């Protein structure tokens, strides 16, 4: 790769930078123009508005992806500028010139250019926005993609109190929802399988030999082809832009170095005031972070306690076992020190692997394309993958069931005072 890039670097002429920027703009959703960048280097005011809106659109997209909320983006320039400043502050961008830029968007294009480049690097921007057209049947194998919870407006009575029966009714309704969801889902699997079965033989690639739902719809509704083709075309051009950008990226970063050189360097001894941005409260409530930390601390403390008990118990048992044994013999024939060391090492690796796996799951994770193959044609790895997924899901299910049952048992014990200690009332438990 080094050889290749070396030979390419020699080929770059004076037009390399605009080409690189043009490629970048194809790959980004904002579509900035190279001219804007050139103007920004010389701190010309014409580039300011476009750069603000570019920054805003990118950051808003990132924000939406992260939070998944459905807020409306602010329309006014001022609101957008506030949002951009807040986001960058949260991520630790620290040039105070940037934060002191006026909110009417009249100056500071060079600062904005620097901020943009910093964003590019910090968020790995072009990659993040590579999304694909979903022309295949996908399934999510992911434990974190649970049902999001929606906040619904309440319409309780005037006093705001409800009867327990209302709660019970709501919960029963929820149960029925689940059952009908189950039924619909089973049916969908059935239908999907039928479509896959019936369209076998239309070879797209070697390894796939049936069509997906969307592709079958191409036949059914001839007008939808156009739409899909357009989407694919735009995705193609985005990808081409991205690839070109990747090849020419070096030019851009070298140029940015020169831009940074043009900025005046402040006297490092002056103490800078911190930025108070009261408007950022509109977007973020820091209290919740402290609440989160409290919650986690509580959980960790509880876990630590449980572990303490378990360790004490096991250590005591171990010690009695060892003592009981060593009274008879000089040393432990069953467990030599070498074996003990080995076990310690193995456990150490296991726990370290656990820690590393927190971000990365070892089992198939994420969005998968669903394919159908007859039983005879499967390769061994494919069979294993499906069974592994099912196995993991079953384990997860069993674990959750156990948790639920233990919670219920806990409630039982708590309420035992009630069921056993009431005057004049006999409480007959079900199943008793």
């Amino acid at each position, binding site marked *: 790769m*080094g050889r290749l890039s070396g030979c390419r670097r020699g080929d770059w002429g004076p037009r390399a930078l605009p080409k690189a920027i043009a490629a970048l703009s194809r790959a980004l959703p904002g579509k900035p123009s190279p001219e804007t960048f050139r103007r920004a280097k010389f701190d010309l005011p014409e580039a300011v508005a476009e750069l603000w809106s570019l920054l805003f659109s990118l950051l808003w997209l990132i924000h939406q992806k992260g*939070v*998944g*909320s459905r*807020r409306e983006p602010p329309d006014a320039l001022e609101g957008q500028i506030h949002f951009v400043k807040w986001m960058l502050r949260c991520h*630790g961008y620290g040039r105070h010139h940037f934060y002191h830029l006026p909110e009417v968007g009249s100056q500071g294009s060079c600062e904005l250019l620097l901020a943009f480049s910093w964003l590019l690097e910090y968020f790995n921007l072009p990659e993040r926005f*590579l999304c694909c057209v979903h022309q295949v049947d996908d*399934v999510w194998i992911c434990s974190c993609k*649970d*049902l999001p*919870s929606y906040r*619904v407006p309440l319409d*309780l009575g005037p006093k*705001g*109190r409800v*009867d*327990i*029966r209302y*709660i*019970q009714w*709501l919960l*029963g309704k929820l149960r029925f929802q689940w*059952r009908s969801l189950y*039924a619909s889902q*089973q049916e969908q*699997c*059935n239908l999907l399988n*039928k479509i896959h079965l019936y369209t076998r*033989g239309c070879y797209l690639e070697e390894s796939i030999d049936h069509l997906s*739902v969307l592709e079958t719809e191409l036949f059914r509704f*001839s007008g*939808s*082809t156009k739409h899909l083709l357009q989407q694919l075309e735009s*995705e193609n051009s985005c990808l081409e832009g991205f*690839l070109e950008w990747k090849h020419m*990226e070096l030019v851009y970063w070298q140029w940015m170095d020169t831009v940074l050189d043009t900025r005046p360097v402040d006297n490092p001894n002056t103490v*800078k005031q911190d930025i*108070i941005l009261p408007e950022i*409260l509109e977007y973020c409530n820091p209290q919740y972070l402290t609440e989160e*930390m409290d919650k986690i601390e509580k959980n960790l403390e509880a876990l*630590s306690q449980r572990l303490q008990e378990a360790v004490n118990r*096991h250590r005591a048992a171990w010690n009695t*076992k060892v003592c009981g044994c060593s009274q008879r013999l000089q040393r432990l024939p069953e*467990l030599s020190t070498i074996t003990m060391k080995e076990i310690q090492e193995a456990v150490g690796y296991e726990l370290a692997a656990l820690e590393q796996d*927190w*971000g990365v799951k070892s089992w198939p994770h994420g*969005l998968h*394309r*669903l394919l159908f*193959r007859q039983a005879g044609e*499967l390769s061994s790895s494919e069979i294993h993958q499906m069974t592994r997924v099912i196995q993991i899901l079953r384990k997860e299910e069993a*674990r959750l069931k156990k948790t*639920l049952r233990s919670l*219920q048992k806990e*409630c039982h014990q*708590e309420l035992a005072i009630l069921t056993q200690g009431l005057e004049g*009332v006999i*409480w*007959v438990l*079900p199943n008793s």
Partner: protein
Amino acid sequence: MIPLASLRRFSLSLRFGWGDASEQELSSGSRAAGPEQQDPAEAGLGGGGGAPNGPRQFSRRAGAAGVCLCYKLPPPDPCPSPRTPAMLPAACSHRLVTEIRAALTACQEKEKELEQSLARCRVLLQPWEGPSPPGPEPAPSTETKSECEPTPKDLKELELLTQALEKALRVRKGISQVQAKENASGGRATTPLVTAQADAGARPRTSNPKASVPTKPPAASQRAKSRVKKPARTSSNRGRALTLANQPHDSVPMEGPAQPCPLPPQGQVPELPTPTPVSVLKEAGATGPNPRPEQAKIQPGLAPEAFLLKDKGTQLQLPLSYKKIASRNSSLWAQVQHLQSNPDPDVAAAKARFLERMKGTFDLPSPSLSLAKVQEEVSRLDQACHILTQHLEETLEGDGELSAASLSWEQEYRRLVTLEGLQAAVKRHLLKLQELREGYRPSRDSAGSKDIPEEYYLGSRTVENFTWDSPPCLGGKGLSGPTNRLVYSSVQELQTMTALKLHVTMLKQQIHLQKVMMEEFLPLVRSETPADPAQLALYRAIHSQLCEAGECFSVLVRDEPSV
């Protein structure tokens, strides 16, 4: 509460379905609903979340029953008269109702999505016209255009129409069956009967009520479909219903009952079915019964038969343009993937240098970790906690079943070492949390922390993890090409997997709700001893909800002093 004497009648553990039973029970407060409320479907429903395979046979009925019950029963008045003071305090109510409603909304959203994709699949599986509609039918191009972009809404409406038509068909089948048999010997040219085709094609749903439809209607529907020129979404049902009317003997007797029915069978088959089914009905209703001239058109058997995915699916050829673009697409993705795995070191160095220089110019006083990073760390710690707990439970799960003696020396030692390792890890994380706390200074921003709506958070409060470096999950084409494919070999496998996924999500929701309820209800119960029957009823309800997931109720018996 019930007097002791009648305890015998209610000695069974009372399993309730939902709706009527508990409503009666609670409103009277003085009798438990009798066992006659039990019926097999309801008993089957009592099984908590239900094992994935369990409620399968009940699912449709249960679903229907559930829908019925939910829609027929008006919701109980959230605030009944003060006669029954079994009310919950305001804050408690507020929280519970919010949480449960949020869960319900999430389910409903998911249901909507499923319905849409179901409608799409069903449309594909029913008979449709071939890719190139032949025949010199007068077809205004505008209608073609508007038809070619079906919206999910239209598909849904079509689905509902199909169901309504089915019902109508069933009702009328009894009437027309006799006449159908008579007409079989009539002068109608019967096209070769493709009974299985029409039947199976029209009935992808498992709830097929009439597997033994007589052969006449399918044949008739064949012809009816051949008359419809559009690449349309005419269901075979519609064809069937309309064709039945075309039998001249039927037209008179059917006129009577047909009028009030929204689907006049005498309506002529519309030559140009419009996109929305409603307008079809209007059209059909508007034009008078005029079967004769239409029959003439049937005879020159216009070319295309109904196209069934089942038969012809394997012969479909994707259009060339699509193939070209799709192959370019996948080659581009392959290049991207290659690039991701071989990053250019020079570029990385240039980027790093720029970043360092930028950092050098940062002159605002800022904590060592930015807010976003703190959040990331916090969520990682959260995840770590979960995983460690999980590991602990796995390690300890042999505890109850196997006695210490039966474990080998190695196993026991291993367990001990694991536990100690876990303990060390937990201590480390607690320390890290302390450090994070000290580094994070909320005081700066807490000026005027008003009651801010919850969506305005930097991160998400729910289960979704806020990770910046999760690679973009690209559906099957992206970063890790072949390994992003999940291959299944039978329907059962796919169904098992999706059922398990659903069950896992449901259990998580249940656990969350259980915890919320515990937090809200247990303090209530502990605070005061119940004084009157209404409060006892409240406690009984709480007990059943917390301990039995609302499925079984205890029986409270007043201990009468012996006379």
